[in-house]
């Protein structure tokens, strides 16, 4: 077992831009242990999205390194990086997470499909998870006919089903009303508690921050403050 799910060392992201380059992330050192429930907070433009994309190998760092379960991914070629995303990372974005041509069930099982899991096994896992997170009966709906909260839950289901090292969620509740947001956080907490899935997600919402086992505050692309709360997990 690795001592970390993800680790970064002096992580920088600089976007070349006129009149001067944007330093979106400036030397972030972060270690997330397996099973953690980490919330990243910070004002708009502080670099939350950029850090999450760096952790998940969706963007390459300008400087510094990222390890997923001990394996350095920052220098991997595109194809290998894609393979890491497929097998070790789950993404949940703020909205439009689902492929509109697929049903809820097909969306949720998509990662498993790409991983080559046989159909009966896929269906079994998806149906069980759907039952657990209150999506039962919605299997055959297409995304346009699901509510925002339901869509986000399908996205979370897809992210965790592949049994990744960590799930990265960028403001997953930003487009939801507070009750729906609470319900989604309940699901994520439940998955974290019951299955030990590691979550790192970003938010603006102070009420969401309260639920973190660990809160990382970003300001101007740097970690300004880390808080570990006693009652989480």
């Amino acid at each position, binding site marked *: 077992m690795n001592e970390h799910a993800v680790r970064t060392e002096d992580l920088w992201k600089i976007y070349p831009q006129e009149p001067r380059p944007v330093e979106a992330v400036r030397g972030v050192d972060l270690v997330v242990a397996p099973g953690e429930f980490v919330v990243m907070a910070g004002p708009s433009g502080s670099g939350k999205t950029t850090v999450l994309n760096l952790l998940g190998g969706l*963007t390459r760092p300008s400087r510094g390194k990222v390890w997923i379960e001990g394996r350095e991914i920052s220098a991997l070629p*595109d194809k290998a990086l*894609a393979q890491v995303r497929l097998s070790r990372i789950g993404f949940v974005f703020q909205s439009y997470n689902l492929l509109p041509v697929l049903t809820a069930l097909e969306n949720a099982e998509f990662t498993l*499909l790409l991983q080559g899991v046989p159909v009966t096994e896929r269906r079994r896992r998806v149906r069980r998870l759907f039952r657990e997170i209150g999506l039962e009966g919605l299997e055959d709906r297409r995304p346009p006919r699901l509510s925002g909260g339901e869509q986000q839950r399908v996205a979370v289901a897809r992210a965790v089903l592949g049994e990744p090292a960590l799930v990265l969620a960028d403001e997953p509740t930003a487009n939801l009303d507070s009750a729906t947001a609470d319900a989604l956080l309940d699901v994520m907490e439940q998955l974290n508690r019951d299955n030990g899935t590691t979550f790192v997600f970003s938010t603006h919402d102070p009420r969401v921050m309260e639920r973190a086992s660990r809160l990382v505050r970003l300001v101007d692309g740097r970690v300004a403050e880390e808080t570990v709360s006693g009652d989480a997990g």
Partner: protein
Amino acid sequence: MIRFPTLGWLALRNLGRELRRSALTAAAMTVGLALLILSRTLADGAHEDWIDSGVRLASGHVSFNAPGYRDSESLDDRLDAGQLEASLGAAALAPLTEPSITTVRVATRGLASSADGALPALIVGVDPASELAFSRLGAEPATGRYLQEGDRLHAFIGAGMATRLGLRTGSRMVLTAQVASGDIAGQLVRVVGTYRTGLDDLDEALVHIPLSVARSWLGVEGATSVSMVLPHSAFTDPVLAEARATLEGAGIEVAGWPETARELYSAVRIDDAGDWVFHLILFAIVTLAILNAVFMSVLHRKRELGLLRSLGLSGAETGLVVFVEGVLLTIASGLLGVALGFALVWAFFRNGLDLTDIMPADITFGGIVFNPVMYPSIELTHLVQSVALTTVIGLSASLYPAWHAARLDPAESVKVE
């Protein structure tokens, strides 16, 4: 590690979602291919018609001559009796599934004269039965009748010559030419009928007389040419090759219609080139339409493609999804296009496309009179070419959008707009 079936399945689903867009894109290709097939079959039909009518009035699809005859047109360069037999034998051996027509001619340049004057003439001694089927000159005589078996001292002449020389059916005229011995000799003949081709040069010059009369008048035993009309011009090359092989060393020249009817051959080639220009323009438009549609669909789905990247597809695999979409569209529209093309050909042009109303009468070129009714003809090689061209276009029009999709920056693409 490429999960190809999954990518194909996804491409199919994507097409299915944007059914209307897919259908419109496919329609551009389908209609393009159908038009191509339509215009090709009509052009091929017309060309075959030109060739057929052209070679019937000239030396056929394939002709057998003594070496030098085609340049000299002199009786000195003729097939002797043995070579004539050999030529007829080779013609009979032609590798054909349908019947061909073979005619034996003794031709010479000379003078046709009457009390009213004289005209240069191309005098051809023919076997009435085979010549009737070959040139069809006598099929619908303008006046009188065509030559018949047993005719002696009869001539079948053009309406133009009849007018110029003041001749009618039953009139007598004198044909004068240099005979085999080198002397100039005259032959008295009686007009049995006239023809009208619409080709003025021909109508004023070409005279048919019985082969036996020509032989005895000109002092010739063999013939100047043996000519074949084939069921289709496409048989020319194989028949030519076979005959050349059979007659190896016999001192007989075997020529195909592209050599013996150069003007006609050029006319067909030029018209073909014109068609290709038209087709290229058509295809440039279709290519741009498809390129635009597929490319727009990529721009439109930028976020979705970024999502696929986040789910673990590589750039190449994401591009492949887009490419497979293009391939599937191409296959579907290719099949539809062929079906539609044939349906159009069958529905509208089964009985020919009649341009009589929009064409001035008697357009002539390359030694033929343009037939105002165009009949479609389906040529397998051209059909395969059309389908192949459409496929190439469908695929190449998908290539750029696929390449673009493969190179999308995933982090950029997943940004909320």
